[in-house]
C-alpha cells in the first residue's frame, strides 16, 4: 500500500511541524538568552500566526478557483461573515454592554463561552475547557453561517461563468460589508465599530495560578486549526468529488456529458470553500483581536488571490508556501525599506515610509510576468516521495560503505 504509507508520512510531517511550532514559541522560556527573533514579541510570531490564517483562506480559494475553475472573488465577504459570527457568539456576556455601549447593549444576550462555562464551571480547568469548547463551536458555526450564505448566493450566481461570476461575488462581498456597517443593525453588528473582548489566540496561552505563562500556545492554535482544515480540503480534493471538480475545470461540457452534475458540484465546491473561508475569517478576527467590517475589503480578496496565483493555481502546497513567503515579505523582511538606512556613512537613496510597497509591487509584477505558473504550477510537494528519496539515498550510501 504505497499510497497509505505516503499519507501516513505526510501526517507525521504535519505533526512534527506542529510540535516544532510549540517548541519555537516556548524557546524563550526554556533558554532566556535566545536572540531577539525568538522573543514572544518578535515579528516572527506575528508572521507565523497571520500566515497560518491566510494559508487556510488561500487554500479554500484555491479549491474554488484552481480546482473547480470557478473564478470567485467573494472570499473577503465570507471571511467577514465568519469573523462576525465568531465574535458575536463568543464575547462574554459581562463584556457586551461595554462593547456595544453606543447601542446600549447587544441584542444577543448570549455567549457560547459563558454557556459552556455554566456547564463545566468557569474557573480553573473547567473554565479553560469551556473556553476551548466555546471557541471551537463558534468556529464551526462561523463556517456554517458563511456556507449557508454561500448556498443562498450560489443559487443565482453559479449560473454565471468566469468574469461575470467574479463580478457578482465581488459585489456580494462589498454589499455585505456595507450591511455590516449599517447603524440600524448596531445592536447585532455594533455598526461601524469593532467588536472586541472575545477570546483570541493569546487566550490559549496556559498560565499558572499567579498569572505567569507556563506554556505559550498562541501560535500553535492557528497552526493546528489551519492544518486540520487544510487536511480536510486535501482529502476532499483527492476523493471522487475532487476528481469531479477537476473535470468541471478541465471541460464543463464533457463533465456534464459523463454524468457530473454541474450545478450540484459547483454548489458543493462553493459552499465548502466558503465554509473554510468563514473559519479563516474567524481565525483572522482572533489574530487581530477584533472584528470590524472595515478590514474585509476587496483588497483583502486580491491579496489572497495574489497568494493563490503566486503559489500556483491548482496546488495546495503552493498556496501554503506562497502564503508564508508573502506574509513574511509584507510584514517583516521588507520592513527595512520603510526607514532610512545607512551603509557606512552612505545614505541609501529612495528609502522612506511606503517604499516597501513599491518594491513589493515590483516583485509581484516580476513573478506574475515571468513565472505565470506560480511557484508550484499545479504540482504538489510530495512529502512521501521526498522522504522515500532521502531514505533510499541514505541506504545507497550505506551499501557503498
Amino acid at each position, binding site marked *: 500500500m504505497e499510497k497509505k504509507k505516503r499519507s501516513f508520512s505526510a501526517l507525521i510531517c504535519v505533526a512534527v511541524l506542529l510540535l516544532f511550532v510549540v517548541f519555537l514559541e516556548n524557546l524563550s522560556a526554556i533558554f532566556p538568552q535566545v536572540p531577539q527573533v525568538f522573543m514572544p514579541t518578535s515579528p516572527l510570531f506575528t508572521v507565523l500566526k497571520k500566515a497560518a490564517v491566510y494559508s487556510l483562506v488561500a487554500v479554500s480559494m484555491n479549491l474554488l478557483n484552481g480546482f473547480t475553475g470557478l473564478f470567485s472573488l467573494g472570499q473577503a465577504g465570507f471571511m467577514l461573515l465568519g469573523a462576525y459570527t465568531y465574535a458575536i457568539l463568543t464575547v462574554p456576556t459581562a463584556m457586551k454592554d461595554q462593547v456595544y455601549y453606543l447601542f446600549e447593549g447587544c441584542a444577543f444576550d448570549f455567549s457560547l463561552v459563558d454557556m459552556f462555562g455554566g456547564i463545566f464551571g468557569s474557573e480553573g480547568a473547567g473554565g479553560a475547557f469551556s473556553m476551548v469548547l466555546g471557541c471551537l463551536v463558534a468556529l464551526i458555526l462561523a463556517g456554517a453561517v458563511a456556507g449557508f450564505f454561500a448556498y443562498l448566493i450560489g443559487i443565482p450566481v453559479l449560473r454565471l461563468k468566469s468574469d461575470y461570476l467574479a463580478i457578482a461575488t465581488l459585489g456580494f462581498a462589498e454589499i455585505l460589508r456595507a450591511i455590516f456597517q449599517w447603524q440600524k443593525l448596531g445592536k447585532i453588528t455594533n455598526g461601524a465599530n469593532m467588536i472586541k473582548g472575545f477570546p483570541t489566540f493569546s487566550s490559549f496561552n496556559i498560565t499558572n495560578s499567579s498569572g505567569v505563562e507556563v506554556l505559550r500556545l498562541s501560535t500553535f492554535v492557528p497552526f493546528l486549526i489551519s492544518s486540520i482544515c487544510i487536511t*480536510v480540503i486535501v*482529502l*476532499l480534493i483527492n*476523493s*471522487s*468529488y475532487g*476528481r*469531479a471538480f*477537476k*473535470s468541471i*475545470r*478541465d*471541460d464543463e*461540457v*464533457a*463533465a*456534464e*456529458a*459523463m*454524468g*457530473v*452534475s*454541474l*450545478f450540484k458540484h459547483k454548489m*458543493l465546491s462553493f459552499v*465548502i470553500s466558503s465554509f473554510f473561508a468563514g473559519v479563516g475569517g474567524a481565525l483572522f478576527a482572533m489574530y487581530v483581536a477584533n472584528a470590524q467590517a472595515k478590514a474585509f475589503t476587496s483588497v483583502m480578496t486580491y491579496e489572497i488571490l495574489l497568494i493563490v496565483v503566486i503559489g500556483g493555481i*491548482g496546488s495546495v502546497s503552493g498556496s501554503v508556501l506562497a502564503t508564508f513567503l508573502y506574509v513574511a515579505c509584507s510584514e517583516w523582511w521588507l520592513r527595512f525599506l520603510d526607514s532610512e538606512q545607512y551603509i557606512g556613512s552612505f545614505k541609501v537613496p529612495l528609502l522612506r515610509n511606503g517604499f516597501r510597497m513599491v518594491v513589493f509591487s515590483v516583485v509581484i509584477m516580476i513573478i506574475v510576468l515571468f513565472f505565470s505558473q506560480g511557484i508550484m504550477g*499545479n504540482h504538489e510537494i510530495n512529502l512521501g516521495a521526498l522522504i522515500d528519496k532521502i531514505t533510499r539515498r541514505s541506504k545507497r550510501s550505506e551499501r557503498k560503505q
Partner: protein
Amino acid sequence: MASALHLENVTMQFGGVVSVNNLTLDVPEHKIIALIGPNGAGKTTAFNCITGVYRPTNGLIEFMGNPIVRSHPVGKEARTYKGNNADKYAGEPIISPTPDHITGLGIARTFQNIRLWKSMTVFENVLIAKHQRAKQNVFTATFRGNHAEEERMRKETMELLEEQGLDVYKDELAVSLPYGLQRRLEIARALATQPKLLLLDEPAAGMNPQETIELADFVRTIRDKYDLTVFLIEHHMDLVMNISDYIYVIDFGSEIAQGVPEEVQNNKRVIDAYLGTG
C-alpha cells in the same frame, strides 16, 4: 423489436435558422444505426438535443419507451417558429433534463472534436465517469468511508482499460496519447458510465483506413459485450455501409432518405445531396 431511442417531430431552431427540422427516427434495441448527411446538415445538433445540451424547440424524444425530452415553442420562440407540428405537444408539460440526468438514464456519448480532460491521466479520465453511479456522498468520500466503493470503481476502471488495450498508458496524460487511442479512450470513458445506448459522434474522424477497419470491429464487439444499442454519426461511407443496420440521411435539418445501406447508396436524393445536382 422494441426501440431504444425514438425521436418524434424534433425541431431545433436557433433564431431564424432551423437546424433540425421535424426529424422522426427510430433506433431499435441492439442495432447499429447511422445518421449521415453533408456538413452542416444538423447531425450533431440532433445529438445535442438527445443528450440534453439543447432543449429542442419542438418535439418528443423517448428512451426505452419513456419520454425523456418533450418540448414545444414558448414565448418568443412561438412567434418566430418556422417548423411544423407546433400544436402537437403544446398541451403537455416541457421535459428538459440536463445532460448529466440523461447520462444517468443510460445514454452516453462521445464528441466530434475530442473532449478529454486535459490535465488528467488516462486512468482518471475513465474513473471520473464512474463518479455518478457510485454510492457515496461528499462526507463519506472525503473521510474515506466509501473505501469499498472507491476500490470497486478503481478495479472496474482498470478492467475497462485492460480490455481496450489502454492499460499500459494508464498513468500518462490523456492528451499525450496518439489520436486513434484518444478516440478509443473517449469510448472507454463513455462505457464507464454504464450506458444502454451509445452515441458516437464521428468516431472515425481523423483515422487512417486501417484504424477505420479496426474501429468497425471494435464497435461491433462492444455492442455485443455490453449489450448496447449504437447510434452514430459518420462521414466515412465505407465504415457506415459496413457496420450500419439501418441509415437515416438528413440534409438542411430534414430527413431526405432512410433505409438499409444498399437502398441509401443508390438513392438519388442522397447522391444529389452529397455531390450536388448536376
